[in-house]
């Protein structure tokens, strides 16, 4: 008899026959001289797994998804099923395993997982969910492996398992001074049955998690140019493809003349695909030159032709109820009698948010080679599982015949998570026309800015009546924004408003979302809906505090107490204490505060801001974070720093505008981002916590815009009604060196 991972007991014979409903068991095996420990799918005919892996080579035996690979020389390889795009997930996941295994962290290596649904489940990276999803499985795997080593040593030395201790990859029996490394015990350990319910450490027993020793392992290759990204893939005979896209979304190709393009040395082929005209050449420079020489005409009739200014005006009308009947709003939170009109004198505001590009440092790219029904791909894919299926579909083959090599991505910020995987599909459509030669699809920065996807433009309308104590009594809120998903009621636009602790004192709450359909492609953007809801809620709350004549920190404190929002209260107090909230600053400087919950993590930020000719200068940001058990404090701080820089770029400059259906921005000269000279000094303070760990790749982004806006409000008395704060400014650009 064995226990499954719900603690349910199942019979071995039944398990072997594949009749049990349980799918995952911890398994161990010796392979190629290394001990593998991981999860075994005992029920491989599970529909989703079968479908997603159809056509794969070793589908039949029931796939094994190793998480740990221990070599005879003591090296411990830990398999990372998540996409690494800078967020440091690989080190966090590895530390969880290493902690329970008591491995030597210096000997831990991180191996990318193969894309395999039946072994690793759905592989997708988003919503800062990596740590939360894998926490339990990884701990159990690590602990099971440790138990196998303990059992092996106990039987070799003829002592009780309880007398054995493990530390830094060494198993020892202190009373007889005997010791052995993982490597020494490998073969014996492999003969042990992995326990299904291994004893896990209590958080106070952690020796690695939460220490500065947990550091990312890829810094050296990334500092010497040795790290390989998709852009760097070079294969014999490879062609580089660039695509001329329609200047308007949804514009169809009318005709093209490729005679001049084909005359460019190095150009090999030109043909139309669903998204435009592809130019293939022996190298990037020739492909780009060939594309410049193309003459293309586009149909305008079906294309999206609205301008972003028109869209903004329309959204404001929708939110104000002046364009009724055009798109129906959905109520996402309601309490009390929202039919009754709000009493006069309520606070009212609107805030406008622009479309935003992701502008990851590495532009979109993908490499694919199609050989009959066999496909090999290289990509910084986010949603490896879905990407493999899309690739297969577009190559007219089965998912199991697609080898997807997931490479590190040079940033993404959500762009590579667009559900359509547009760039990967585009690459497949080209590659299948060029049988057997590898093709690298390359997008320039201009392609990336103009061809989507974006954080959607959003409009918030908020009206709040206060009670006699100055706290919200009646809160009306209307959000207008395109939906990122075809289903789900546009919940992504409402996250950060829904269930807000600021509604606690209100007897009437009415929150609505209107989700117009437009031809402008939108997707997840680092922190998703929080990228606009945090600004709205936190900037509104400062204005309510001003109305009530109270200090913004005090006002929040009281509301959090009444709401029982203890974790918000915790980060608020920490940020205030560490930033010197309430103490005087030099003339012309003010502090701004914002507190927000994003994907289960809580972040408070206090920004020190001065206004020079109306332009905010941010010199210091103090952040307080509660993300449950902090696995890698250094990486949490890094993500907070990076999140603030990313959020500040958007708050100050980020703005994609559309005129006559055409995107107006093209590169970093008209889509400026924060550079070295504008980066504030940042301090990150992590609250001790025993809660389950939550991700930190995104939550640091959202609070910076309202923290800066609130400081500006304190300085000038004028609220911010739209982002970016410096619309149309490109002044940050310093002269290039050459």
């Amino acid at each position: 008899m064995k226990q499954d991972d719900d603690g349910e007991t199942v019979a071995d014979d039944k398990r072997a026959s594949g009749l049990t409903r349980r799918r995952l068991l911890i398994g161990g095996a010796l392979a190629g001289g290394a001990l593998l420990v991981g999860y075994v799918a005992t029920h491989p005919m599970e529909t989703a797994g079968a479908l997603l892996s159809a056509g794969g080579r070793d589908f039949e035996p029931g796939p094994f998804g190793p998480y740990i690979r221990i070599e005879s020389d003591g090296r411990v390889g830990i398999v990372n099923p998540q996409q690494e795009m800078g967020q440091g997930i690989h080190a966090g996941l590895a530390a969880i395993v290493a902690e329970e295994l008591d491995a030597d962290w210096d000997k831990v290596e991180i191996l990318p997982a193969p894309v395999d649904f039946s072994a690793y489940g759905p592989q997708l990276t988003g919503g800062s969910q990596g740590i939360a999803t894998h926490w339990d499985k990884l701990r159990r795997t690590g602990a099971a492996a440790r138990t196998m080593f303990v059992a092996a040593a106990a039987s070799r030395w003829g002592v009780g398992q309880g007398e054995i201790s493990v530390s830094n990859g060494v198993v020892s029996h202190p009373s007889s001074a005997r010791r052995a490394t993982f490597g020494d015990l490998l073969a014996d350990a492999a003969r042990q049955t992995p326990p299904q319910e291994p004893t896990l450490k209590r958080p106070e027993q952690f020796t690695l998690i939460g220490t500065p020793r947990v550091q990312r392992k890829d810094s050296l290759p990334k500092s010497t140019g040795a790290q390989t990204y998709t852009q760097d893939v070079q294969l014999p005979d490879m062609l580089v493809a660039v695509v001329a896209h329609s200047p308007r979304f949804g514009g169809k190709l009318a005709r093209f003349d490729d005679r001049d393009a084909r005359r460019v040395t190095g150009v090999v082929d030109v043909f139309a695909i669903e998204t435009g005209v592809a130019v293939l050449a022996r190298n990037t420079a020739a492909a780009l030159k060939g594309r410049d020489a193309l003459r293309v005409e586009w149909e305008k009739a079906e294309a999206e032709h609205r301008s972003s200014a028109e869209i903004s005006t329309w959204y404001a009308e929708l939110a104000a109820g002046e364009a009724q009947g055009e798109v129906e709003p959905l109520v996402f939170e309601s309490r009390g009698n929202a039919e009754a009109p709000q009493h006069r004198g309520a606070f009212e505001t609107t805030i406008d948010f622009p479309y935003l590009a992701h502008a990851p440092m590495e532009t979109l790219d993908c490499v694919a080679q199609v050989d009959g029904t066999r496909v090999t791909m290289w990509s910084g894919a986010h949603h490896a599982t879905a990407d493999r299926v899309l690739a297969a579909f577009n190559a007219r083959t089965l998912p199991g015949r697609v080898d997807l090599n997931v490479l590190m991505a040079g940033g993404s910020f959500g762009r590579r998570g667009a559900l359509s995987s547009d760039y990967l599909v585009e690459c497949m459509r080209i590659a299948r026309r060029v049988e057997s030669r590898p093709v690298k699809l390359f997008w320039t920065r201009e392609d990336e800015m103009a061809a989507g996807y974006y954080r959607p433009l959003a409009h918030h309308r908020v009206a709040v009546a206060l009670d006699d104590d100055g706290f919200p009594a009646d809160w009306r809120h209307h959000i207008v924004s395109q939906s990122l998903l075809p289903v789900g009621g546009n919940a992504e636009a409402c996250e950060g408003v829904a269930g807000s602790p600021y509604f606690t004192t209100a007897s009437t709450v009415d929150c609505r979302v209107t989700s117009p359909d437009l031809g402008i492609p939108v997707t997840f953007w680092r922190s998703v809906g929080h990228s606009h809801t945090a600004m709205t809620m936190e900037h509104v709350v400062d204005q309510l505090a001003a109305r009530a004549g109270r200090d913004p920190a005090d006002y929040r404190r009281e509301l959090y107490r009444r709401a029982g929002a203890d974790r918000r209260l915790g980060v608020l107090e920490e940020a205030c204490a560490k930033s010197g909230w309430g103490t005087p600053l030099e003339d012309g400087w003010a502090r701004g505060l914002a507190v927000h919950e994003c994907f289960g993590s809580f972040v408070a930020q206090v920004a020190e801001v001065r206004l020079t000719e109306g332009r905010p200068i941010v010199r210091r940001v103090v952040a307080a974070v509660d993300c449950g058990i902090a696995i890698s404090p250094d990486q949490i701080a890094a993500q907070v720093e990076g999140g603030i820089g990313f959020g500040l770029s958007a708050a100050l400059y980020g703005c994609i505008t559309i005129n006559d259906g055409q995107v107006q921005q093209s590169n970093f000269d008209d889509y400026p981002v924060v550079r070295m000279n504008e980066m504030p000094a940042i301090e990150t303070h992590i609250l001790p916590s025993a809660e389950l760990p939550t991700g930190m790749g995104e939550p640091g982004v959202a609070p910076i815009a309202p923290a800066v806006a609130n400081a500006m409000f304190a300085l000038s008395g004028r609220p911010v009604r739209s982002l970016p704060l410096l619309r149309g400014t490109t002044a940050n650009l310093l002269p290039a060196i050459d």
Partner: protein
Amino acid sequence: MQFELTVNGERRRVDEDPQTPLLWVLRDSLHLTGSKYGCGKAQCGACTVHLEGRPVRSCSVPVASVGSRRIETIEAATGSPAGPEARALTRAWVDGNVPQCGFCQSGQIMSAIALLRERPNPSDQDIDRAMSGNICRCATYSRIRAGIHTAAASLRSGAA
């Protein structure tokens, strides 16, 4: 057209259109992919290499304009033997966990090497001036700044 370039101390013969940006010659023809494309118009610094020891944006240098000037890329600058500045900087980058996605970092290191060669003891303003042409979308700027100060200190103390 044929060009003879001096890349990382070696003579390399390439056949290119004269207007081809040096970046694509390095990446596609010579397979030196440490220098990255990020913007193609001297806005981001991801493609920074040294021309006669001075940092340039290789995406905006036509191959025909290089002539006999010495080109050094990240591969040689941080390879062995690396100069003292490069050694101190890569050590500071690793110890300080500077990179996130890492894509901008070869350009950052190339700009930082040039800065330290010119100003062994740079002020924050010197760093702003020398490094503001290098965008990092992961915004690792504070760690880059700290890394440059650490590297400068270790060079002064002779530790590197």
